[in-house]
């Protein structure tokens, strides 16, 4: 597994590196009130990056107290079936359990699966098509009734009811029922509403998944929150997200969308039944803000402990924090790659050389600055596989020398490619960018400015960011509007090349609407590699295949990666046992956060 | 009979005579100037007259001749309630019943207003507060100067309304001004100004805003009331017909000065200033068939900032060239006695004027 902090930044801009180095080395000097950052004093913050891939002040954790989250963005839904935001999945572990889940450990170890409701990870048959689990004793719902295998099956079946419960991931639907025969529990004619054939529940403690085709990441998918159990008699369908029925240590006390959420202890939950969750605080609150600056200010003031969104502080708060409270910050890699992608349907991007002309013409350092610079933005992206995904090489793999020789753009090479493309004088095209992401608009402007130098003129079209799936998710619309360059970002749903790249790079995933394969890559080689990958059960080989897929994608010049994203996240001085986890793309692992003694 | 100041010459030269006059009202060398962005507006520029109790003085002139400014000056309304802006410059003396008003304490003058001296304004609709009933406004006027309760004041208001000829006064007392007809409004206005039995009543264009038929009624009312209360009255108007009905004496103003004055019958039948001729000529007269129209006064009133040199009337005067040596355009004519109690300010000789009047003007009237 790759540890992203050791890689890269070899020949970065001297000035930038110097500033960063100074920051990192003098972290201990920051913040007047932070007396002792390194070790873990009672009142002080743990120090810069103290919780990045390692647990900070774990020994100070106490039982009790109120853990206060702040945020500017509410979950898309707190319904385990419908949520798709990473922070929501992270937070759902407070009130929902799955058969298996990520380890409650820092960094890469967090992405390793460990049994949760199940007694052990799956017993998989040799063909990789049958997964069998046995449930633990003593696992209960918030009303004290035991969680059964039927509850788990029902919870998973809900993914089939996309008409009612849209929004969440549907991997299981595609894997277990590729032909779409099952119509979902709400249209299920069987009495127990458990008509899905691919899952069998011979008794309340046993659950068997029968895959039509092997998928080596199947267990990773079962670890997603969308595989959590839901009890039929508590299923309020589209309104389930307003008050999910808890299987974890906390339950909903109150929730007002876009305003506040309060979790209190689920007294029926037994610590003995749960090897993962420590359940330190008595109460967990979430307050939503509309102004990120306000929120950051409140975090800095200590009114709240951390940002639930975990997408980094806004520029204002970040600057203040970096200057005065460095010891409260962590600078993890987010697991997201930020990039521009070139739809092949839009001329001249059907020609590989024109795509490469853009890659060579771009000023990568300028793009990095637009993303927030090396600390708040991330290292210059040199390829498409995020560092947290097995098989990733980080900046070591840099086919276009974006982080080294060409980091400020290579006009000569770009012109060469333009000539090869038959457009020696450049061309005109349009960048599509979400209007609600100022940073993406800034990168578009940066790209526009640097491409001008090689003769490529671009218009920036800021489309409605709330309608992404309808606008850039429709290849027909992309072609009609002539979006030659689309600016996006992508993070893994689960940390494998499948969980990250399949929707982006597989020819099978080119959809009429809601498409994410914006480049319209329909490459037999890549599809073949993915096929081998899902059938491959050997971890080492899976890693190799992942690397190969990444190389193939990069060689095609479909993408211009900007950065391997990094965040500057605030860690409240009151927090103990804080660590980032690759399981949730570098976010703090919420489930075992504690307040200090 | 009105007694006018002793000498014509004294009229234009400021004479500081601090002796209290014997007349009820005496105005001495009154000047009212307004500084504006465009220059100093000399609205009244040296005016003298006296008025006895029980008598009526008519002040006649075009708009802008300074007649309203004079009346407001007497009432002390140029200084009351002037906020921050460039103040009117007033000089001269105004003696009312033995007291000089311009140098008196403003609060003393305020107390005189409404009690000793009252005023009727041109447009009763705009002069009455639209949000208060007629009764409220009369009651207010009464209670300022009389310590009585509201009931008594209201009785007094009804009584006054009755006196000025408003039918059903006990009901109408609760009406708003807009609910009255124009004539009734003016009656109410008169009732309000007379509620404290003032000794001086100034009526500023009291009938201008009214229908012709109503005009006569209002004038009758004023005359009757004057007899009844024995007040001194100043009627200000541009309409010679009005003063003909009411006045004992007439004062004709032009460009902020008096250009002719005298007993009413003199000014009417032996006017000695071309401007007065013009006024008479433009007056519709009911008592005779009008076959020929006299040329009315041509042109527009003089700018009060740049008053024409010489005789202020010279640019409009058809006889400006009658006197020799261009004197009308260089020398300002002073008032000179042209008959008993009759003064006029004109460069033409007495004979010239007499001849023009008899030969050219009178026949056409």
């Amino acid at each position, binding site marked *: 597994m790759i540890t992203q902090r050791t890689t890269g930044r070899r020949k970065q801009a001297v000035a930038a590196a110097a500033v960063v180095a100074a920051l990192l080395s003098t972290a201990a000097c920051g913040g007047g009130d932070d007396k002792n950052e390194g070790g873990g004093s009672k009142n002080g913050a743990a120090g810069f990056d103290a919780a990045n891939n390692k647990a900070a002040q774990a020994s100070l954790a106490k039982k009790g107290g109120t853990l206060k989250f702040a945020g500017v963005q509410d979950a898309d839904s707190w319904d385990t079936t419908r949520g798709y935001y990473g922070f929501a999945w992270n937070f759902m572990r407070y009130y929902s359990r799955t058969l298996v889940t990520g380890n409650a450990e820092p960094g890469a170890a967090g992405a390793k699966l460990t049994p949760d409701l199940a007694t052990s990870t799956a017993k998989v048959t040799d063909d990789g098509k049958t997964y069998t689990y046995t449930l633990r004793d003593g696992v209960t719902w918030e009303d004290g009734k035991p969680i059964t295998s039927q509850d788990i099956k029902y919870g998973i079946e809900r993914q089939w009811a996309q008409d009612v419960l849209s929004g969440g991931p549907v991997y299981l639907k595609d894997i277990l029922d590729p032909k779409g025969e099952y119509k979902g529990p709400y249209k299920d004619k069987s009495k127990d509403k458990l008509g899905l054939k691919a899952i069998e529940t011979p008794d309340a403690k046993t659950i068997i998944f029968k895959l039509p085709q092997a998928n080596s990441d199947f267990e990773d998918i079962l670890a997603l929150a969308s595989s959590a159990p839901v009890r039929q008699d508590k299923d309020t369908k589209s309104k389930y997200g307003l008050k999910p029925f808890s299987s974890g240590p906390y339950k909903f006390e109150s929730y007002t969308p876009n305003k506040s959420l309060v979790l209190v202890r689920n007294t029926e939950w037994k610590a003995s039944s749960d090897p993962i969750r420590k359940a330190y605080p008595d109460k967990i609150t979430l307050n939503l803000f509309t*102004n990120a600056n306000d929120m950051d200010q409140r975090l800095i003031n200590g009114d709240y402990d951390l940002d639930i969104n975990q997408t980094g502080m806004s520029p204002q708060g970040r600057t203040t924090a970096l200057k005065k409270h460095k010891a409260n910050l962590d600078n993890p890699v987010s697991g997201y790659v930020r990039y521009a992608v070139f739809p092949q349907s839009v001329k001249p991007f059907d020609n590989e050389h024109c795509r490469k002309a853009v890659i060579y013409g771009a000023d990568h350092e300028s793009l990095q600055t637009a993303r927030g610079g090396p600390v708040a933005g991330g290292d210059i992206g040199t390829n498409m596989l995020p560092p947290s995904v097995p098989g990733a090489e980080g900046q070591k793999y840099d086919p276009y020398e974006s982080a080294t020789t060409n980091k400020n753009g290579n006009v000569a090479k770009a012109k060469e490619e333009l000539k090869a493309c038959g457009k020696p004088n450049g061309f005109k095209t349009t960048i599509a960018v979400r209007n*609600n992401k100022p940073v993406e608009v800034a990168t578009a402007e940066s790209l526009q400015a640097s491409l001008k130098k090689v003769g490529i003129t671009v218009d920036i079209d800021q489309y409605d960011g709330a309608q992404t799936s309808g606008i850039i998710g429709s290849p027909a619309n992309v072609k009609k509007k002539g979006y030659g360059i689309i600016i996006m970002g992508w993070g893994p749903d689960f940390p494998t090349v499948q969980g990250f790249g399949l929707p982006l790079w597989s020819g099978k995933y080119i959809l009429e609407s809601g498409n994410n394969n914006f480049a319209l890559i329909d490459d037999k080689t890549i599809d073949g590699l993915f096929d081998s990958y899902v059938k491959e059960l050997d971890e080492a080989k899976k890693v190799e295949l992942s690397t190969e897929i990444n190389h193939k994608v990069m060689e095609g010049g479909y993408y211009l990666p900007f950065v391997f994203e990094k965040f500057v996240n605030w860690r409240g001085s009151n927090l103990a046992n804080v660590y980032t986890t690759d399981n949730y793309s570098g976010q703090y692992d919420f489930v075992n956060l504690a307040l200090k003694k | 009979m009105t007694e006018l100041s002793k000498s014509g010459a004294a009229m234009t030269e400021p004479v500081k005579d601090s002796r209290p006059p014997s007349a009820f009202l005496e105005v001495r060398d009154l000047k009212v100037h307004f500084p504006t962005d465009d220059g100093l507006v000399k609205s009244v520029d040296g005016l003298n007259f006296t008025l006895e109790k029980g008598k009526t003085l008519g002040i006649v002139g075009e708009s802008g001749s300074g007649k309203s400014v004079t009346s407001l000056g007497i009432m002390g309304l140029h200084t009351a*309630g002037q906020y921050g802006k460039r103040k009117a410059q007033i000089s001269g003396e105004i003696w009312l019943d033995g007291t000089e008003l311009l140098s008196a304490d403003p609060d003393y003058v305020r107390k005189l207003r409404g009690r000793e001296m009252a*005023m009727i304004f041109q447009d009763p609709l705009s002069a009455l507060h639209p949000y208060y009933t007629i009764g409220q406004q009369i009651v207010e006027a009464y209670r300022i100067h009389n310590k009585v309760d509201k009931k008594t004041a209201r009785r007094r208001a009804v009584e006054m309304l009755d006196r000025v000829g408003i039918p059903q006064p006990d009901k109408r007392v609760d009406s708003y001004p807009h*609910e009255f007809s124009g004539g009734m409004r003016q009656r109410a206005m008169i009732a309000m100004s007379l509620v404290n039995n003032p000794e001086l009543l100034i009526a500023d264009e009291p009938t201008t805003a009214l229908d012709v038929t109503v005009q006569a009624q209002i004038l009758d009312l004023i005359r009757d009331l004057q007899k009844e209360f024995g007040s001194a009255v100043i009627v200000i108007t541009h309409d010679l017909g009005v003063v003909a009905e009411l006045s004992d004496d007439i004062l004709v103003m032009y460009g902020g000065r008096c250009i002719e004055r005298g007993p009413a019958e003199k000014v009417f039948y032996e006017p000695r200033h071309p401007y007065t001729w013009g006024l008479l000529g433009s007056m519709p007269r009911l008592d005779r068939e009008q076959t020929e129209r006299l040329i009315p006064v041509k042109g527009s009133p003089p700018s009060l900032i740049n008053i024409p040199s010489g005789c202020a009337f010279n640019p409009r005067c058809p006889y400006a060239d009658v006197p020799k040596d261009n004197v009308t355009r260089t020398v300002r004519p002073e008032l000179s006695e042209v008959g008993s109690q009759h003064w006029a300010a004109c460069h033409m000789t007495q004979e010239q004027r007499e001849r023009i009047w008899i030969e050219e003007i009178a026949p056409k009237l």
Partner: protein
Amino acid sequence: MARGTAAGPRAVLAYLIRRLFAAAVMLVVIILVVFGIFFLVPRWAGVDPATMFVGKQADPAAIEAVRQKLGLGEPIFVQVWEFFKGLFVGRTYASGGDVTNCAAPCFGYSFRNEQAIWPVLTDRFPVTLALALGAAVLWLIFGVAAGVLSALKRGSLWDRGAMIVALSGVSLPIYFTGLLSLAIFSYGLGWLDAQYVPFAESPTGWFGGMILPWVTLAFLYAAMYARITRATMLEILGEDYIRTARAKGLREPVVIGKHAMRSTMTPILTMFGMDLGALIGGAILTETTFSLPGLGQAVLTAINTKDLPIILGVTLITSLAVIFANLVVDLLYAVIDPRVRLS
């Protein structure tokens, strides 16, 4: 200006009915316009409105369900009619075995948040109301006082000073003054908290958090009101009836305080009613700048996420507030000004 007796009870009733009818017509028009903006314009632009309501993975089934629930397949007039019915009898949205009830008064239902709109409105309304009323008290007192003083001291240093401040006030964007005041008093000096705290949670915290929004909003309006009060007062002071009041021998304070103020306040109150009505409907910029969870902010968020039901609901409430304020103002006017006849 009609001549006649002041309004009798019957006239008032007839007038009210007429006005309420007009208000209803107005609301229908507004609903139609909002529907038009959000359903016709995107269609014209080639975007399926249903896709606005679905999330990251736009499953066709999900799009279809949204279409069914919102009745997007129906002609716009049917949609409007359904909306109206919902206001009075409540509404039920059904699709794929999922039934959502929305009790009357149903201002719509947000499928993004799985929330009926009415509770959102009632939850947000007090914040906006507190903002508007608090600011209104401030600006009415200070704006009118400054305007009257300026009029009375016309041309003085005070007048010039006050009018320059007022002109600056109306020339400054409220979000700029808001941001500046936040930067200075809240983040810089730390005197005032920038965060809205619900009243129930902490009355003092609430008050502290509201001071800056109140003052900022009041500053803009106080500036406007000072200018208008001054102009109106000067005009009134030139009125004949003020001269009459003086001619009666009234003391100057009475002339100003009673006669001039009464007339000056009439147009000011009219404006006040309208402004207050508009603000109660949502002070978008102020709420955005100060992160106040009021109606204005709700609607701005909703516009960004294309959450049509909320936009529709807030727009309706806003329009209702404005129309109601208009009505109250007109009725008040009839009380204040005897010349006005309700017709």
